[in-house]
């Protein structure tokens, strides 16, 4: 099976004044299409930085990152924005829904940016919200939804435009364990049903248990890489 993500010797250094922080020290990582992969590690290990670089939100200082054959560390900001829009779905720890839009409108938003016609947007957004169990919450705004419901909307938003890959940064960190488990169940179902590749960062054991592949990152390097199937 082809690799959707290829990282070769990826290094990232943050400069805080005169201090240099080596977030990634030469990561090599390949992820196959349809994977359900967890990047695990303690805080500060570099897993969020890794996700940001794979997602084109941040640039690596050196090394090569390829997403579906595109070398993204050589792309301009504008091209990266187009790549993210068409190919990548994001789920964030703090949900990051747009507060003035309803659940349905939040899910429609990415399709709006893609230029999908209004009727199709509405149809697809309604269907995906039904899939994530939020059919009755379509018209509610984020402030009227629980944390778990908000994160489900975020997942719906991430997958509604059929991206190649969904990047989820500690998606269960703000949820209680039961809600978090429900969310993981749902993401794995989406992975299996729609063959969408999921990469998520976590330090939650329950989330690690759901992953089919578990990559441990420690001090900016891949410390361990296990297949859990």
């Amino acid at each position: 099976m082809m690799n959707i993500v290829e990282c070769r010797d990826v290094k990232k250094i943050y400069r805080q004044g005169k201090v240099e922080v080596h977030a990634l020290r030469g990561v090599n990582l390949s992820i196959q299409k349809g994977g359900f992969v967890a990047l695990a590690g303690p805080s500060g290990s570099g897993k969020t930085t890794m996700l940001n670089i794979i997602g084109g939100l941040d640039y690596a200082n050196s090394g090569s990152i390829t997403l579906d054959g595109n070398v993204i560390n050589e792309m301009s900001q504008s091209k990266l924005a187009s790549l993210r829009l068409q190919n990548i779905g994001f789920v964030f720890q703090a949900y990051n829904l747009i507060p003035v839009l309803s659940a349905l409108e939040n899910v429609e938003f990415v399709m709006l940016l893609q230029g999908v016609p209004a009727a199709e947007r509405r149809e697809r957004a309604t269907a995906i919200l039904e899939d994530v169990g939020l059919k009755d919450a379509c018209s509610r705004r984020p402030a009227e939804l629980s944390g778990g419901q908000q994160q489900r909307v975020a997942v719906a938003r991430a997958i509604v435009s059929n991206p190649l890959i969904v990047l989820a940064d500690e998606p269960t960190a703000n949820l209680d364990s039961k809600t978090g488990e429900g969310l993981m169940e749902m993401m794995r179902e989406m992975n299996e049903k729609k063959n969408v590749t999921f990469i998520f960062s976590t330090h939650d054991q329950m989330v690690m248990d759901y992953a089919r592949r578990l990559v441990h990152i420690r001090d900016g390097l891949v410390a361990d890489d296990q297949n859990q199937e």
Partner: protein
Amino acid sequence: MYLQMGWRNIWRNPRRTIVIMTAVIIGVWAMIFLGALMRGISEQMVRNGITTLTGHIQVHHTGFRKDPVIENSIDKPEVVEAALSKILPQGARWTTRVRVDAIASNARHSGGITLVGIDPGREAGISFIGQAVTEGVYLKADDKYGIIVGKALADKFETKLGRKLVLMSQDTKGDIASRAFRITGIFRAEMETTEKQFVFVTIAAAQKMLKLGNEISEASILLTDYKGADRVADDLKRVLPSGSYDVETWRELLPLVTAVLKMYDWFIYLWFLVIFIAMGFGIVNTILMAVFERIREFGLFKALGMKPWWIVREVLTESFFLLILGMVAGNALGFLSIFALAGTGIDLSALSEGMEFAGMSRVIYPVIFIKDIVTANLVVLILGLVVSAYPAVKAARFTPVKAMAHT
């Protein structure tokens, strides 16, 4: 959905939205209302000038305007009257006058005045004097000794209706001409200087006193629309014998008013700009605050693949809504204020002497000029969006990772 988002975003912080809207409302109101007052002042200056014995067009003997002596009278008024009958459009009115500097005196006082000999019937339809007599009666065509004086002059000369007033001037032979008149009417005018300057007798009485025969000093014309003055004046110049007559419009007859009108145009636009500068700081500050409060959100937009230009458009949409709401309310308030004062005006009698010096009326009535309303709104909308571009571009330049890490 962009419009929906913009609309909803401005109501995320209603207090802040109301504060900035209030600033826009006050700014637009000040532009429209004070602009209308300035236009009212200038319009009344023109009207006062035209009705105070100017009219829209005047015909004089060549040289009278430079040296208004009796020798420069029009010696063939029938030529002018024939030209007027031929050229003037439907609805236009005209009259002839004798106008000469003179000295008025009674037992107590004496002073310089302008003696105006009028055709009472024709004059009433042209200048202010027909409706200005507040005590006594207006002149009759065959009144040989009647004179109308201004209230201020009557007070200055400590005289009243029925008393005599002696006028003295130079006649066509170069001799002193004098005649006693009896005050039959006292008039009030917009400006006190008018009341002090002019006294009115019949044209026949003036001609007899000055031994003018049928000569006149000027013909004054009032058109139905002042905009046609230039065209009619050109026609008159063409018909009248060249070199003998000066034909001038009110713009040439009232150079000070014309200059003030031009100056007012600039004042109004300068006023708009000054108000906008004050308002513009408020707009930038508010939009900037709204942008910095939502750094994470703009980071999210970029993470989801929103292009920087779309973010600029989103912020400008919010600014557009704020400006439009403020403009609608500001216009409504401005028009209400204008209509509220349309009947009564603003009475500035207490300042009348100072205002008269500048040729203004005692009561100011606001006047709406559509071009001012359009300009005021365009200034607010276009410059408002221009200054909003700064926070909008700032929002578009956040990098997603830094913006989303912002707390």
